[in-house]
């Protein structure tokens, strides 16, 4: 499977269509609740399919190792990002912490697109990688907040809801819940719901990425806070984090497909779960900034270049 094959898949082409449409200022828009419905569908489908695969393969040492590696990595990656954002990016501590949290966490849609590409290329990641995805969503929020709050006194703010927001976040609950359901029902009972969750998967991903393309460009245009230095970091960070991820995956002995998925989780930046938590935890941080960087720069970069890059890197490391 060459990179051309990835780039010419309908999923990617719809993303490009969204980018172009927004770039020429077309009024094409996806209704908000349709976008939300599609993201709920994608999370349920990804969880179910992962769970069914784990139920078929059984618990394995690889699963535990990958889960622990994901936990540690998600906690650790923001420290490096924070350092780079402050020094090279010239960002204040508060915003650097918020941005760092996004890059430590992971993006469901990037993972979904990568799974799609890997499966098409005959190197489908292990089912348990979905659980790793869910595990990696949250620890980064903790380290991001620790970093941001050094020297920022907090009192009487809506922060009481933050831990709830983080741990009981809708996407984490839906991902892990669907994963558990998939593991309980197994392959036979998955059959009746397969036409929806497997059959529609790629088609829904197309329309969802169309929307992401539209939103990425529009957000970038509306935002004023993105400097050239920060824009460069939004490309450098996924390359750095993804390479670290690929090495760690190699270290814990994942197969090439799972290792590529792991690298992409490390490379990707959250633009749904973490921003929602940051708005409550760090309300003074600028959402325009961390959303533009993760959604409008890093996300397209990963979709178009990161996925083929880390597939190639993981394949090379596996030799």
């Amino acid at each position, binding site marked *: 499977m060459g990179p051309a094959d990835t780039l010419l898949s309908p999923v990617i082409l719809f993303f490009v269509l969204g980018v172009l449409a927004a770039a020429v200022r077309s009024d094409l828009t996806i*209704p*908000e*609740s*349709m*976008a*939300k419905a599609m*993201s709920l569908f994608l999370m349920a489908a990804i969880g179910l399919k992962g769970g069914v695969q784990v139920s078929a393969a059984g618990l394995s040492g690889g699963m535990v190792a990958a889960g622990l590696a994901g936990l540690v990595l998600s906690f650790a990656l923001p420290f490096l990002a924070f350092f780079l954002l402050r020094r090279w990016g010239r960002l204040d501590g508060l915003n650097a912490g918020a941005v760092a949290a996004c890059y430590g966490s992971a993006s469901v849609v990037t993972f979904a697109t990568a799974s799609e590409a890997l499966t098409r290329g005959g190197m489908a990641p292990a089912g348990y990688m979905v659980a790793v995805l869910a595990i990696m969503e949250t620890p980064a929020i903790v380290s991001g907040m620790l970093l941001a709050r050094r020297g920022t006194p907090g009192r*009487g*703010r*809506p922060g009481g*809801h933050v831990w709830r*927001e983080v741990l009981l976040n809708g996407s984490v609950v839906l991902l892990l819940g669907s994963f558990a359901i998939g593991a309980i029902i197994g392959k036979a009972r998955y059959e009746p719901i397969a036409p929806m969750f497997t059959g529609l998967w790629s088609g829904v991903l197309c329309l969802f990425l169309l*929307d992401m393309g539209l*939103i990425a460009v*529009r957000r970038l245009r*509306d*935002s*004023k806070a993105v400097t050239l230095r920060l824009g460069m970091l939004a490309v450098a960070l996924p390359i750095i984090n993804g390479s670290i991820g690929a090495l760690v995956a190699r270290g814990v002995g994942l197969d090439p497909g799972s290792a590529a998925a792991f690298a992409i989780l490390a490379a990707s930046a959250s*633009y*749904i*779960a*973490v*921003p*929602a938590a*940051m*708005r*409550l935890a760090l*309300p*003074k941080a*600028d*959402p*325009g900034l*961390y*959303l533009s960087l993760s*959604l409008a720069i890093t996300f397209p970069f990963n979709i178009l270049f990161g996925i083929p890059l880390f597939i190639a890197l993981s394949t090379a490391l596996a030799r």
Partner: protein
Amino acid sequence: MPKLVRRKRLEIIADLEFADWLADEAEAVGITHFTIVPTLGGKGVHGRWRNDGLGGQGKCLFLSVTSETRAEALIDRIGPHFSDYKIVMDVADVEVLRGDRFL
């Protein structure tokens, strides 16, 4: 008009995630009635935004008709957070029937 009494109409524009917090703060000063209205987008010092259903952009309009005393109490209480939480508020004079329902 029959028994119309003066009250204050508080209109607060804030991130949707702050709705529960606003309700708690309102409750703390004795305001127990409110309605939340959705928004489509807007513009402020933090730039243009659209409610696109993905993280970080949804705002709502928190509406409460209440007594002057309680309106003041709420403003005193949450006013200091306005610039941190990007909250925008205006207060207007209105008249209502059944004044006892608007404390």
